[in-house]
Every structure is written in structure tokens, then in C-alpha cells.
């Protein structure tokens, strides 16, 4: 399936030195609908972003399984080691198979 863009805020330092540990902050706009299934209520199927994968210059540096207990618009933070200037590619997989994608460039001096 073709990845689609998603509203997200990815915060990286403006530049980093080779070998430096950089903090990556990710906020993504998503309702993270955990299923509604109770008597008297209209059933709503679960629809969350269940996986986030992050590659840096093509190599996977971070992967996370997200659970239905996580609030809407999930925020997360991780660190990686700056090697070369390259793109961090974020892909989120949603229930139902939709794949969302965003990129951010890490500049290494």
C-alpha cells in the first residue's frame, strides 16, 4: 500500500556532530480509537497506529508497538547516534493496513 502523509511534528536538533546522541521527539495527530463495544453503544472497530518504524539513512534505528491504552495524538521520544547527514523516515501502520509516512533530515557536521 502506498504510504500517505500524516500531520506530525518531528523535532530534531538543527544539527549534530558525528557520534553525538540526538534526541528525536515525535508528536502525531491520530485519534487512536480503541474499540467501542458495549451494550447500547454503536460498536466502533479499533483503529490505532499499532506500529512505528524509524529508519535513518535506510537503516532501522527505532521500532515501537503501540497499544490501545495510549492516548490520542501520541507523543514519544527516543535517541539515536548521529552518523551521517541523512533522512529519518517515520512510518506508522494503522489498523486496516494504511501506512503513513513522514521524513525529517538530520544534518551532521
Amino acid at each position, binding site marked *: 500500500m502506498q504510504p500517505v502523509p500524516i*500531520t506530525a*511534528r518531528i*523535532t530534531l536538533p538543527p544539527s549534530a556532530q558525528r557520534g553525538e546522541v540526538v534526541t528525536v521527539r515525535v*508528536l502525531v495527530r491520530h485519534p487512536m480509537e480503541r474499540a467501542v463495544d458495549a451494550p447500547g453503544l454503536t460498536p466502533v472497530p479499533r483503529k490505532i497506529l499499532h506500529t512505528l518504524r524509524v529508519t535513518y539513512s535506510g537503516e532501522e534505528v527505532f521500532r515501537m508497538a503501540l497499544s490501545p491504552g495510549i*492516548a*490520542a*495524538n501520541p*507523543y514519544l*521520544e527516543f535517541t539515536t547516534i548521529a552518523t551521517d547527514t541523512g533522512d529519518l523516515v517515520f512510518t506508522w501502520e494503522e489498523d486496516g493496513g494504511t501506512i503513513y509516512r513522514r521524513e525529517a533530515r538530520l544534518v551532521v557536521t
Partner: protein
Amino acid sequence: MTRGWRKLLPLLALLLGAADVRPTQDYLSPEIRAAQEDPSRHPGWLWVEEGEALWGRGEPSCAACHGNIAGMAGVAARYPLVATDGALLDLEGRIERCRTQHQGESAFGRESEPLLALAAAIALQSRGMPVAVATDGPAAAFLEEGRHFYETRQGQLNLSCGQCHDNNAGRRLRGDVISNGLGTGYPAYRLEWNTMGSLHRRLRACSLGVRAEQFPLGSREYLTLELFLASRANGLPVEAPGLRR
């Protein structure tokens, strides 16, 4: 000032019996307060970015008349205000007027995503600036209405606003600390809502809390109350877009 002292301040004010109104940020937990100051962690910025994009859209766009959105600095600090036709307008009401009268579009509707986004982006331009609402002239009558609403006992619990927000500010109510009940942080992202919301939505929650009648968003009751709350906040910094529990 050390963090410990800051925590004690509301308590100190309580002991002195001072009618001291403090900014809501002083009542936030250190974690929420830090996140409120940090755009990389504050989910409200998702709305701010949307609002900044909306600023450039439409025919004519907001930017076509008002220029860069940075030119809106200080505007949110003056709302609510009385328009030339005598109506009391909050920031959202002003945006809706602009949209229907100058852009020839249909109104966004209270609590809609684009209206909250635009309000958040515009309010952000006034962040840190002192609230400066007019309380004299045509606003005086509205202000008195708001004061009356604030001071009147309401609902099955028979509480007035001040019984929590003046007499018990700084103390805990269930899981949260009672603030002085200012609207300076709105529109705010509330973790309980999982979304951005307006002050009027928050006021409806307050009304429900004391089991009183909930008024509609944008109603005269909440508009005049908003004006009174803003008059209490005069001189205190605008915190919008805020982060609340």
C-alpha cells in the same frame, strides 16, 4: 525562585487571606508546565500549525487583510471586547464574523477544528503578553453581568465560582489542583479531552461539575463570564495555547 517555594505560594496566599489571583501556570504540575512551554511536546502545536496554514487560505485570506500572523500580537489579550455594533465578542466570535462578513464563507461553528486551530494560532501571537481587556465604557454592563454570574451560587451543589476558585485555590479537588479559574490558557489542549478545546467547553464542564444548567457555547452567560474572568486576569500573561489535565 526555587520550585519548592513556587508550590507554597498559593498556600501562602490562602493563609494571608489575600484575594490574590495568580496565573494558572503557577498551579500546574511541574511536568505539565514544562510541556506547556515546549512546542516539541505540546500537542496543541498540531492545531497551531493547522491554524497558521488556514491563515493563508480563503478568498480573501486572513493574511490578505491582516498581513503576517505575527501582526496579531496582543490581539487575543484584548478579548473579549465589545464590537462597534454593541455585541460582546470573544476571539472565536471575531474570527467567525470575519469569516461570514469579509470572506463570504459560512461560519466554522463553535468547537470546530478549524476555528480552534485559528484561535490557537492567533492567541499564540500574544503568548506571554499581559491580558488587557477593556472593562469600562460599553463593556461595563457586560462585566457586571459576568461578575454577577461568578458570584451567584448555582446548581444542586449550590456553589458559586469563587467558593472554589478564590476560597480554595491551590488545594486539591479530586486529582487536580484548583486554580484561580482564569481563561488565559484557552483554547487549550486538555489531556482529559484528548483534543484542543475552547474556554466555553471548559465552562460547560464547570457548570456540570456543580450540577447547574450548562449554557450553549458562545452564550451570553459564558461570554460575560469570560469577560469577568479576563478582567480578573488583567496584567497576567496570556498562556494560550495552554496544556491542561
